[in-house]
């Protein structure tokens, strides 16, 4: 029983970070129908940003997110404005191929500059895990979880309560109708991409103390991200949150109760099943 609760807790903690990454991807898809293959590499950049800030400037990752989140927003803005904007009219498939190229470019540049050596961030206060009720909770993951919740709540508030947020949701549902109602669809697109990128990078910053860093981590992350986003329904923010937590739980429980070897395959099998039989996601809220 204790193992079970331990797995659930681990699953939710990691899942929350997956959710944050997934929300970024789904919101980009929802508004612009861009399948961003470079999303995982944005997470990687966030990870390395936090690593270098820590290693060179001794800034704690959970503080450096205050720098990196806005910086990533700007990066996303520039990426969309100067690279992606002209590609989107060429169709979903071309955009997919383009972002795949971008992904390879970013990951390999990082490989070149930072080498493929695994990096870690060792925080002094993080050596021993917390033990509430006997469940081991690594401190960095706990803090990351907390911040992810705060950020996600802020995002939710933004999307539901602010005019810009509502405009983004409107564009996501019906771009033409939104345009007719005076929404600057182009501006929404750039803001959304910047936001999605910031969420990805931010998640990377938060995750960095808990994982091994290497430049090509984006590849497997983006694959997992697609699983999340498809499970939750493409374009749905609550769906991505649920999908992220679900994947975290599946991986965590799967590692304990299913044979360890094939556990990674479970996610992909579920992904295929959902794509084939319930394309609007497990909760039926996505667009197909």
């Amino acid at each position, binding site marked *: 029983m204790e193992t079970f609760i331990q797995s659930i807790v681990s699953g939710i903690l990691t899942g929350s970070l997956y959710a944050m990454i997934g929300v970024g991807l789904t919101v980009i898809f929802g508004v612009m129908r861009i399948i961003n293959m470079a999303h995982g590499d944005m997470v990687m950049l966030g990870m390395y940003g936090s690593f270098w800030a820590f290693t060179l400037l001794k800034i704690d990752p959970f503080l450096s997110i205050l720098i990196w989140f806005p910086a990533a927003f700007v990066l996303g803005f520039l990426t969309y404005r100067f690279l992606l904007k002209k590609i989107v009219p060429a169709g979903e498939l071309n955009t997919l191929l383009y972002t795949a*190229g*971008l992904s390879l470019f970013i990951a390999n540049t990082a490989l070149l500059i930072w080498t493929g050596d695994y990096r870690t961030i060792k925080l002094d206060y993080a050596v021993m895990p917390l033990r509430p009720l006997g469940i081991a909770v690594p401190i960095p993951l706990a803090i990351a979880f907390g911040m992810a919740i705060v950020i996600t709540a802020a995002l939710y508030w933004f999307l539901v309560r602010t005019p810009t947020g509502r405009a983004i949701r409107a564009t996501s549902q019906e771009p033409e109708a939104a345009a007719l109602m005076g929404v600057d669809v182009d501006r929404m697109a750039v803001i959304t991409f910047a936001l999605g990128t910031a969420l990805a990078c931010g998640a990377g910053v938060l995750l960095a103390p808990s994982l091994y860093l290497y430049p090509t981590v984006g590849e497997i992350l983006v694959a997992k991200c697609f699983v999340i986003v498809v499970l939750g329904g493409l374009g749905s923010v609550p769906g991505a949150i649920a999908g992220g937590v679900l994947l975290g739980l599946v991986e965590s429980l799967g590692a304990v109760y299913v044979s360890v070897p094939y556990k990674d395959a479970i996610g992909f099998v579920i992904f*295929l099943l959902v794509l*084939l039989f319930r394309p609007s996601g497990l909760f039926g809220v996505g667009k197909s």
Partner: protein
Amino acid sequence: MKKLILAGLIILLLAAPWIIAKPFFVHLMIMVLMWTVLGASWNLLGGFTGQVSFGHATFLGAGAYTMMILYLKCGLDPWYGILIGGLVAALIALPIGYICFRLRGPYFALSTLAVAEIIRLVALNWESLTAGPVGLLITTLPKVSFGGQAINWESKTPFFYIAVVITLAALWATAVISRSRLGAYLLAVREDIDSAEAVGINTVQVRVAAFSLSAFFAGLAGGFYAMYLRYIDPDAVFSIALSVEMVFIAVVGGLTTVAGPLIGAIFLVTLGETFRERFLVGHLIFYGFFMMLSIRYMPEGIWGKVRNWFTKSPNTGN
């Protein structure tokens, strides 16, 4: 005239290892040839038929493992193993196609990626068949003779000629298909599936045929890859990176053309391998860069653009 140039190029190709005898150069040519086959294989499905697959490494790996297992466990000579590898790949394309072709466009692409990952993980874990992460290793290749002389497997030259045979087969097949009724049907499916059905084309059959043919050549290349490198493991042959590289070579070279994959391979592989010699990592940076450049400025690929310079009249879909 065209046939003469073609014949001349082939003769030049066959003589190449004697003209420039440096091992790195021969290795480079082998890589270019192998990637031409992989690009051509992807081109059949992604270029002609318009079905973008991000999981073609599945077939490369299938061919590689088939050849390895048949050689190491059954003693079947590698050249037969390569052929059977191609057939095995073509066969597994059938159920995979059945599953994935229910989806269209980017969703088809993602589903092929998922399938590739699942197969990689299966290969990683099915240790009794594949030896898992340890991989499979060839220590000695068969003692055979060709034209009275024993083949020296330590030299790269015999591998070069095997690669030439496979590459010429792949390019020739692409040329034949592109001129045939099947080739026209592939383009129709790429353009508009409903219209294709309306004119009597069984689009499911056509797509599966394209998928299978494409898989066959990827499988051949995979078998060769295993024979040349002599070591394979699941992460080497089933990786997403390999799938993606295949896409890039075909796209940058020129989709729906016969020579496109060759040009793409010559360009990208030369850049990449030369870079890798010097810097060891990050050679895919060129792939990424030129892919972005292509999609933005040259969707018809390098070869497509070159051809357009020479023919001002509208092409029939190429």
